[in-house]
């Protein structure tokens, strides 16, 4: 029991550390969401996108099956380091999304939910700038599809 607890903390401490590092690295997101004409208001999409993760995280904690996804955490670290060394915002923002997703375990459907980060990434707004509505219909559509996949993720975790 004690051994198990000790190993659990060994797993969780670095995953939270990676999340903190990625939040620090992507700290310009709040400014971008406020000032960037192609990304303004995407903070709301980000918050809605987080809801399934919070739901799964809460359930995993309640059932004692809280387990980080190390593949995602490694990917988020690599992306974060590319973002810091290369001074590349998109890599920093993707790193944040991966680090957030890496806080909980999950399979195929979680990856599809994760792809929904395209709905809040500032780069999406820039790429979709030619689409009428400043890319908002595209962002909203991506969010809805992502939430639909997250339902399958949630249901899969009940088995």
């Amino acid at each position, binding site marked *: 029991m004690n051994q*198990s607890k000790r*190993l659990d903390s*060994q*797993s969780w*401490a*670095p*995953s939270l*550390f*990676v999340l903190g*590092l990625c939040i620090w690295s992507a700290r*310009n997101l709040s400014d971008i969401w406020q*000032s*960037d*004409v*192609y990304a303004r208001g995407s903070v709301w999409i980000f918050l809605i996108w987080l809801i399934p993760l919070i739901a799964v995280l809460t359930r995993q904690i309640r059932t004692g099956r809280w387990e980080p996804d*190390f593949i995602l*955490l*490694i990917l988020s*670290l*690599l992306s*974060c*380091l*590319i973002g*810091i*060394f*290369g*001074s*590349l*915002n*998109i*890599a920093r923002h993707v790193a944040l999304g991966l680090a957030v997703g890496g806080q909980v375990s999950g399979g195929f459907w979680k990856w599809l939910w994760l792809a929904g980060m395209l709905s809040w990434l500032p780069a999406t707004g*820039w790429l979709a*700038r030619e689409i009428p509505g400043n890319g908002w219909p595209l962002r909203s559509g991506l969010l809805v599809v992502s939430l639909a996949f997250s339902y399958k993720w949630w249901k899969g975790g009940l088995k």
Partner: protein
Amino acid sequence: MVEGRTQVKAWQSRILWVISILGILLTLVVEFLPQKDAVEQLLSIPTADRSFRSQETPLTDQERELLGDASAIKKVVYPHSGDPFLFSAIDGSRNRHAVHDPRYCFVGSGWKIMGEQSLETRRGTVQSLILERDGEQRHALFWFSTPDQWFVSPISFWGKATARRLTFGLAGEEPILLVVQSLGDQPLTSPATLEILETLDPWK
């Protein structure tokens, strides 16, 4: 079985710690290493030639704030035959985020992009924009300049600037963003104007 899983977890945890700590140390080293910039190139831009003269214009407080540590010059260029225009050059070596798609700035300051097209020149490609705000029309050009070529894709700029940083300068020079704006509604695409712009190229 369970022990096997936890052993892998502990191993993975160690990997995460090692990469995180190495990453932080490398970040600190990179932060304190002096970065090579292109200030000399900006300063070498000619102020006059047989076809034009120019006058440097001070940056506004807002521009200084946006540029941060990046270097920039702004000047009004007076062609001997033709209308004056505003010429800006930004070197983002010390602050990569100061250099971004100029369409952001135009749209952000209330201009509407009514049309745009790519133009081929002897040095490479430039992007021509037609802007409109409050019934006024202006023309603008922008491109990224390297010793090898001119190009207009911000994605290529990100790629080159990132590769340069990740290889500590071995992947090439930092592209310099050049932006030209008309002061009236005259087009900027005449051969005479493009020839002046070639003379103003910091990497020439």
